[in-house]
């Protein structure tokens, strides 16, 4: 679901595509998605962007359809410098996410509790700030364990 291999601190990326590709390839390496997930999630972000003006700072939640997913998972990247993403639902608005949460959802009905917890996390200013300011992967892992645990 979430492992320390799926957490990136201080991720230095040039742009949106670079960021998404890095996280998607981490998912492939972890064996939670098919290789086709990488192109699918990049394509989906172009067509339907996923950045959100969250309560603490901008975030993005790149994801795609379940066909490319093997096991439900989430990964987290705290970016060294924010990169440009377009806002979900309003592609003409540019946001600058500081943290990315990539989602691999294999069955939204089955993983509804997880999705609800993720939404709650996105509305929790203190938690978001602690994730962004974390010094170690362990710290992030501990903060997110209650979100992703069964």
């Amino acid at each position, binding site marked *: 679901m979430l492992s320390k291999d799926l957490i990136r601190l201080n991720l230095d990326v040039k742009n949106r595509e670079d960021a998404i590709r890095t996280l998607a390839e981490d998912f492939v390496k972890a064996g939670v998605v098919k290789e086709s997930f990488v192109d699918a999630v990049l394509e989906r972000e172009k067509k339907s962007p996923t950045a959100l*003006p969250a309560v603490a700072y901008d975030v993005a939640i790149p*994801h795609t359809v*379940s066909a490319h997913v093997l096991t439900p998972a989430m990964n987290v990247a705290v970016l060294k410098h924010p990169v440009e993403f377009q806002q979900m*639902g*309003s592609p003409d608005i540019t946001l600058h996410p500081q943290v990315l949460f990539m989602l691999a959802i294999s069955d939204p009905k089955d993983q509804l509790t997880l999705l609800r917890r993720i939404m709650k996390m*996105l509305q929790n200013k203190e938690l978001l700030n602690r994730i962004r300011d974390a010094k170690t992967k362990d710290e992030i892992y501990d903060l997110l364990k209650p979100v992703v645990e069964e």
Partner: protein
Amino acid sequence: MATKIRILSICGSGVVTSSMVASKLKDLFEEKGYDAETVEANSSEVESCCSRQQFDLIAYASPINDNCGIPAFNAIGLITGMGEDEFMEEAIAALHKAGK
């Protein structure tokens, strides 16, 4: 007796975000005395969904071309938590207008 309403929840893939929005809407409408049934779909499926079933509202997290004459509202505020009250006020005003 709760008033039954049907909401079409739209996002880019018709899966992840629309499910988050749908579950949130069920809770919020329950508090307001409605029994909300939701259908999740992607933005290119709006017309076909509306031709198959009657909907009272559309909540979209991905832009839609055509609302098929159904009151449609941007659902991003439901995900970020900011703008939740405004969403509900407008949605309920639209339901009242339709006699629900």
